[in-house]
């Protein structure tokens, strides 16, 4: 089970879906949801300079976060290269564009989960692979 998860997504309804799915699949008991990448970046900056005990173990970032200064890939790049590379991080998006996935890999994303009505099987598969992501031994993977 993942200790704590942070979800960054502008869609509030998906927060509920993700929370319920994580609970039903026993992926994690601790889940924090944010609507903007700016807010997430601010928190990571705080965790870098101040108390890092609240920092999540795994981060799911939406690709296009409406109302934010930068998109999910830029947030991943910031978390990996500016705020310390201490988390398992990847994209969760309805997009399946190889070009975007290549950019995500360059930014340091470890996985790409495609959003759909049936998200639970993909999260379950991710949960099974999680240890290898944590150990940095798994290659970049797209969960379709």
């Amino acid at each position, binding site marked *: 089970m993942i200790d704590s998860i942070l979800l960054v997504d502008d869609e509030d*309804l998906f927060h*509920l*879906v993700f929370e*319920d799915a994580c*609970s039903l699949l026993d992926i994690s008991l601790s889940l924090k949801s944010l609507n903007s990448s700016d807010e997430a970046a601010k928190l990571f900056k705080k965790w870098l300079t101040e108390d890092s005990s609240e920092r999540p173990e795994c981060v799911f970032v939406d690709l296009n976060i409406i109302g934010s200064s930068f998109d999910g890939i830029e947030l991943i790049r910031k978390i990996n290269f500016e705020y310390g590379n201490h988390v398992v991080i990847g994209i969760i998006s309805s997009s399946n564009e190889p070009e975007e996935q290549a950019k995500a890999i360059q930014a340091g994303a470890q996985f790409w989960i495609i959003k759909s009505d049936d998200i639970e099987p993909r999260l379950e598969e991710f949960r099974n692979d999680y240890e290898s992501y944590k150990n940095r031994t798994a290659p970049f993977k797209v969960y379709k």
Partner: protein
Amino acid sequence: MIVFDKNSQQQLIDLNKSKNIALEGNIAKVINTSDNGEFKEYIDYCITKDRDVRRRRLDMTKQVQSQNKELSDLNLENQRIMIELQHTLDSVEESKTQIEMQNKELIAWKEDNQRISEELHVAMSKSESARLEAENAKQAAMNDLDLLQKKSQTELIGTIVKVALGVIITVGIITTIMYMISLFMNKDTQIIGSTWSNMFGILLTNAFSIIGTIMGVKYASKENNS
């Protein structure tokens, strides 16, 4: 793991039995239940109940999400149709403007045509007038020529008549003189007399013939002029 004492465990169990109020959420998953079978049963019940609630909520949320997506797609489709309509409207407006311009050009062409037609009509009238004038002039010239010819003919006839009359009168006078001399000189007048008589008859006949011819020519000239 969170550990509840026996009393708290019993209170939670009793609350569930009396008022059907149970623990909800992930908190139930972090409670230690190893020392109490009844409490473990209660916590399992809480977790199962929470799962059922979450499952129902997840299904409903997905349904709402799906409906939202459909609405969003419909909205996009509406926007696309609106854009197409706007393009069509713009195209119609452009066509309308072009038609208006063409109409203006056609009206201008029509006015030009009318003006040219009027000018042509005036030119044709002038041409017709000129033609009539030319015909009149031609007719006048022909009349003048005819008159001149007739005048020349009349003068010629007059001259001929005068010469002819002169010749007749001269021959008559000479013959008469010769006949009178023969009478006064008591010469034989049989031949000269018959000659004078024949000559005079012929001269009179010719004189009347000439006069008749002149009258006929004059009459014919009057008919042609009228």
